Every structure is written in C-alpha cells, then in structure tokens.
C-alpha cells in the first residue's frame, strides 16, 4: 500500500499512540480534580501547551486546545466577531476550507458584509485584490497558510503588514492546518492547527489567540481552557499531539527533505506522461507535501478508484469536498475548470513516504492513465 493522502489524515505516530494509551489507561485523571495525581496530569497538559506554544512562537496562555481544525476555525471566526460590537466587513479567501468558508456564509446570513478574496491559478491569494477589499469597516480577514488542494503558500507576513498599514483595527486569522510545522510561524492574530495532520490522533486541535484579542467561547460549561473551551480536557489527545509535534520538531529538516524529495520525484516522473498539467505553484516553491496534477482525458474519480485497487491511495480534492463532482469550488476559484478539473488528482505526502514509492506510484499511474485514455469519451 502506498499512502499519498496525508492531507486528509496521517498515520498516528506509534510513540504518540502509546502516550495517548498511557493517559487513557494509567494516568486517566481529570486535570480539574483536586488530588495529587490529577495535579500531575494538569502539569503535563501545561507542559504540552508550552511545547506547542513555543513551536508557534507564542505564549502558553495564548494556546487553547480544541477538538479539531474545524472547531478552531469556527471558534476563530464566529467567536472573535461575537466579541465585537456592530457589524462590518469580513474577508476570507475564495479557496478556504469548508470550516472557514461555510462559517463565512453563516456570517453573511447574520448580516456581516462577507467578501471573498480571489486567488491566482496556483491558489495563492492575490495581494493587490485583497488590498482593494480592505475597507475601513473591515473587522476580520481569514486566509489559509497553505492551500490544501494546490500546496500554494500564502504570503501571510505580507498580508499582516498590509492590514496593519491599511486597517490596523482588523484581525487576521490564519488556517494553519496544512502548514503547522511544515512552514515557519507567521504573524497573525489567530492561527488554527490540527493534530491528526501531524501524526497525532484525530480529535485534537488548537487555536492560537494572540493577546489581547478577545474571542467569545461558544461552549458553556466548566470553564476549561481558561474559559475559552469548556469540556473535560482531552488529556490523551493533547499529550499525543505534543509528542507528535516534538518528534516533528526534532527531525524537522529531515522530514521536510523527505517529503520534498518524494514530491519532486513524483512530479518529474509524472511529467513524462503526455497531457498532464500541474495545478499549483512550481513544485519547489509550494508546500513540501502537496502536489496536484491533472491527467487530461481521464476522470479523476475513476482514476482514483483504479489506483485504489492497486493499493495507491490519493485524493480528487480535499476529502471534505471529494463527493461534489464538477463543483470543486477551490479549483473553480483557481480558474481550473472542465477536463482539467475533472482529471485533477491531489497527492499529499508524509515523511513515511519514500522515493521508491514515488517511482512505483508513477508507474501505476502511467499504466492506469494510458488504459483509461483508451476509453475516453470519443
């Protein structure tokens, strides 16, 4: 089996799974309880928070654990605006993940002036166009760090600087789910991350909220996470998350090189097939782990099924949107339509992948593409 769908989710690191298990079966105490054992759990969670905060170049008190990337994104958008008075403009990019995009649609229902910032053919936000959308009543801008379909990396620091110049009162939220640990930390007001994209288990994420930004919580309860996110602390998830990112931090250069190596190798192999198109930035410029290519004259879903039978797992778009044929909002926004959209396949890598896999995968793809092209609509 060759797993090239790491942007959907990654295998959990054995070490992270062991730690989660330890905190489920032995150190299972509720950190909110009063006895010594639970105090120790609380300290462990604090250490995990400090660890993740330092990797985000933030203070521990600025990091709040959530259940996933979607919750982090929803909290950032809905919660920060709920803490403001009045209404105004909200800008999100046209290629955001549904957890930002759908939240923006909901905000529009609630009377906010929601605008979508356009992107170029690679999926990167166009700065001049964004600048022209920044009106004085702009309250929030949400832009993803790495485009989960194309691997384009947005110039977040430039966007932040632009905003501080033109609309100093507005907040910048960044969906960092595909970028955390893979790209360097950026300047922003809020940043969302998710554990299972980095070899932690599913069910844990975090939101960085820079001081003094105010976010109104939407879960009411016992006041965990400094009142930001009530609900019994997910200790096993948090500890595993911390362990997984520590491992990544320790081997960061090596892991990034491994992913980039697989990506470049697969790209050069696939470029030899006729009638293929790259969707996204030049492979050496984009994120190290995402490659999107179109195989003209082949239906992405059919190719995906054929490859899956051969043990190669890929995606026809982010897993959250994979079942909406011809309506790939993200590729549409990038201007990738028709046959090129139909034939698009996303490959996403982790450091567990190897160049041998890239060679084998390319061979399988070439076989299936040429087989399927014999049966193209004529």
């Amino acid at each position, binding site marked *: 089996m060759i797993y090239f769908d790491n942007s959907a989710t990654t295998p959990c690191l054995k070490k992270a799974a062991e730690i989660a298990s330890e905190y489920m079966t032995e150190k299972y105490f509720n950190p909110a309880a009063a006895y010594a054992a639970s105090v120790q759990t609380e300290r462990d969670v604090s250490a995990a928070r400090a660890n993740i905060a330092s990797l985000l170049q933030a203070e521990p008190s600025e990091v709040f654990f959530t259940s996933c990337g979607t919750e982090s994104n929803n909290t950032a958008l809905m919660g920060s605006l709920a803490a403001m008075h009045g209404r105004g403009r909200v800008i999100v990019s046209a290629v955001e993940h549904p957890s930002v995009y759908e939240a923006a649609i909901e905000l529009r229902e609630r009377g906010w002036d929601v605008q979508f910032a356009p992107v170029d053919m690679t999926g990167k936000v166009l700065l001049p166009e964004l600048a022209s959308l920044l009106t004085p009543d702009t309250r929030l801008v949400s832009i993803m760090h790495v485009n989960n379909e194309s691997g384009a990396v947005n110039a977040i620091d430039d966007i932040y600087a632009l905003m501080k110049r033109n609309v100093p009162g507005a907040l910048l939220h960044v969906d960092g789910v595909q970028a955390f640990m893979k790209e360097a930390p950026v300047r922003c007001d809020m940043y969302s991350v998710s554990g299972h994209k980095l070899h932690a288990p599913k069910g844990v994420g975090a939101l960085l909220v820079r001081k003094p930004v105010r976010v109104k919580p939407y879960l009411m309860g016992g006041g965990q996470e400094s009142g930001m996110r009530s609900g019994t602390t997910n200790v096993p998830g948090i500890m595993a998350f911390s362990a997984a990112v520590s491992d990544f931090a320790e081997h960061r250069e090596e892991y990034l090189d491994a992913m980039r190596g697989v990506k470049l190798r697969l790209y050069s192999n696939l470029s030899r097939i006729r009638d293929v198109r790259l969707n996204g930035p030049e492979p050496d410029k984009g994120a190290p782990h995402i490659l999107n290519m179109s195989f003209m004259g082949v239906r992405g879903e059919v190719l995906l099924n054929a490859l899956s039978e051969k043990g190669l797992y890929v995606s026809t778009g982010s897993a959250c949107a994979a079942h909406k044929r011809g309506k790939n909002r993200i590729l549409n926004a990038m201007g990738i339509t028709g046959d090129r959209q139909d034939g698009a396949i996303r490959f996403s890598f982790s450091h567990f992948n190897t160049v041998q896999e890239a060679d084998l995968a390319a061979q399988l793809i070439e076989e299936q593409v040429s087989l399927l092209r014999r049966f193209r609509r*004529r």
Partner: protein
Amino acid sequence: MEKVLLVRYTEIHLKGLNRPYFERALVDNMKRALRGMEPVIEREHGRIYVRNISDENFAEALDRLTRVFGIHSVSPASAVDKDWETVVSAALSLMEERVKDAAPGTTFKVLARRSDKRYMYNSDTICRELGGRVLERFPGLKVDVHDPEIKLSVEIRDNAYVYCDEIKGANGMPTGTAGKASLLISGGIDSPVAGYMMAKRGLTLSAVHFYSYPYTSERARDKVVELTKLVSKYAGEIKLFLVPFTDIQMTIYEKCPSKETTVLMRRLMMKIAERIARGEGAMALITGESLGQVASQTLEALAVTNDAVSMPVFRPLIGFDKDEIMDIARRIGTYETSILPYEDCCTVFVPKHPVTKPRLEDLRASEAAVDFSDMIEKAIENTEIMTIK
C-alpha cells in the same frame, strides 16, 4: 382497555374465491414487517386487528404497517368491552387527549359501524347518543357532519373499537401475490421507484446491479445496497445480484462502433438480467426507463433493448416526467440516497454522442460481430449475491 392497530385493506375484496389467499399473504407480510414485536394478528369481517404490541413499539409498528402493500389505512384504536358506558368512557378519554389543545369551536363528528346487529343501539343512535355525551363533556366543541376537524369513530364488532385517526397505507396488492420479477437497479433515482411501483402490484423482487470494478468505488456499491434496503422496507426481502461488468464494457468499447456502446451495453445487461431472473423463477424484468429521458430511452432505443430478451419488461415509469419520479422517490425515502454523486458503471464508459435512433439490424450485427458468450458466463459466475431485508 387495550390498544390495537385496526387495519383496512384495499382491492383484496375484489378477488372472489382467491380472497383467503390474498388475505393470508397480507397477514404474512404484516408479520414479517412486525418481526421482533410479537404481534397477534387476527382477521375478522374485512378488517385485520394487530394486538399485543407494546407501548414503546406502537409508533414504529404503525409506521411499518403503513409501508406494507395491500393496506389501505391503519387506525390506532382502543379496544373495549361492548358495554355502552364502557364505550362512552373510552371515547371520552380519547377525545380528552384530542381536544386538550384545541381552540374553542373545534368541530367534530361521530361515525359508527355496527356489525353486531344484536347491539342495543343502531349506528344512527350510537352517533346521536355519543355525540350528545361528547358535547356534554366538552361544551366548546361544535358538530359538523360535513367537514369535521375530528372524526370520532366507533365500531361495534366482537369488541368495541374507538379511534380518531386513520393513517393512509401504501395501498396496492400484498407482495408475493403476483409472482416474481427482477429489477435492474442502477443507483439513480428511477430504478428504485420502478421497483417500488411493481412491488406495490404484488410482485416479489430480486434486483440486478452492474458495476465496473475497479473503476466504480466501494461507495457506489454501498449506495446500491442501501437503495435496495430502502425498497425492501416496502417490498420485503430482496435478493440482490451484483454483476461485474467491466470486461464486457471494455470489449464493447474497443470492438464496437462508439455511438452504439450505450445501447449495446443495455442489451447485454438485459440478457444477463434475464438469465439471472430465470434462475430465480422470475417471469419479468423491471426497469426505470422513462420515454425520451436520455438517448438510450428513445422509442427506437427501447425497441432495440427489448429485442435482447424474451421476458416481458415492465417499465412502470415510462409515461412519467422526471419531476413526478422525483416526487415519488422523495415520498418513499430513496431520493436522498439516489442523488449521492458517485461514478456508476453507466457513466464510466460512455460515448459523447450516443445514437438516439439505433437501427435494430445494425445493433444485432454489431453484437454478433463479437463473441460475448464467454464474458457473459464469466460475469454470471462472478456475480455476488446478497440477501437484503
């Protein structure tokens, strides 16, 4: 007082000497629908009574019965002793519940039936007496014999039955009383509706699905299983045959004229389905075709498809518009599953410009030019069979 479900049935009373056979089939189907609820089912003078259903199962039992073909309507009723005062008190307590939140001036009417002719009151008297007692207790109500908001019904039989609601059933004929047929099921909107409609006329169904492994996904397959399951809520147990069709499709694609591929594919599907149907003792095929809906459903194309088999082919949707079909799909609960967008075998290998007026001689010639017999054997051999209930 006992809670019972009073079931009225449809056309069965038209069936003369066959009537006991239809009634037995209906009762069997009801028993199957109420599996696990230990129902006691009794037939009596054109009614069927379902007893012994526990309170927590009552609503579910009602729901299941309204999906059994042959049932005209179902009323949840209170069964009491025929003693007049007992009947009145059961009726009043039923009304109590009903008028609790009703606005003043709400209208009602009493309907009475009496099969026990020895009973102290005749139907008219029952209506008048009981109507009076209801007005006495609930002075805010008004009588309206033409268009009442509440219909309080009393039936005097071996017992007395009192009820207010009459919930519409699925109508039709009891499944199994009309024989067996095989449904060609695709995963779209039409074929489950076609299956539903023919099961409604009393047919027992089996279903045949063609898939293009590995080019269609496991989800597409799950979708067909789920659709079959939804149809089986009405039609009872369905044997589902999953036929691998990729080799045949690829051969057609490579060796036959491209604009004929769709019609040829359909001819071969019909042939295979007929083989499977015969093996099952089925005497007809059912498809979801509707005249002119797509290129393969023009009159010419249907004639060519029909020519591939000798069994009767039922096309219950032939004269329906897409909107009408979608309405039925929504009503029977298959629509939401049908519109899940997965590639199916009909969309993987299709020509851009299929012929809309195929000529039978051309198609027969194209088909004869390739020897499909081994591939058909192989497809049937590799068919997977599932029992869906």
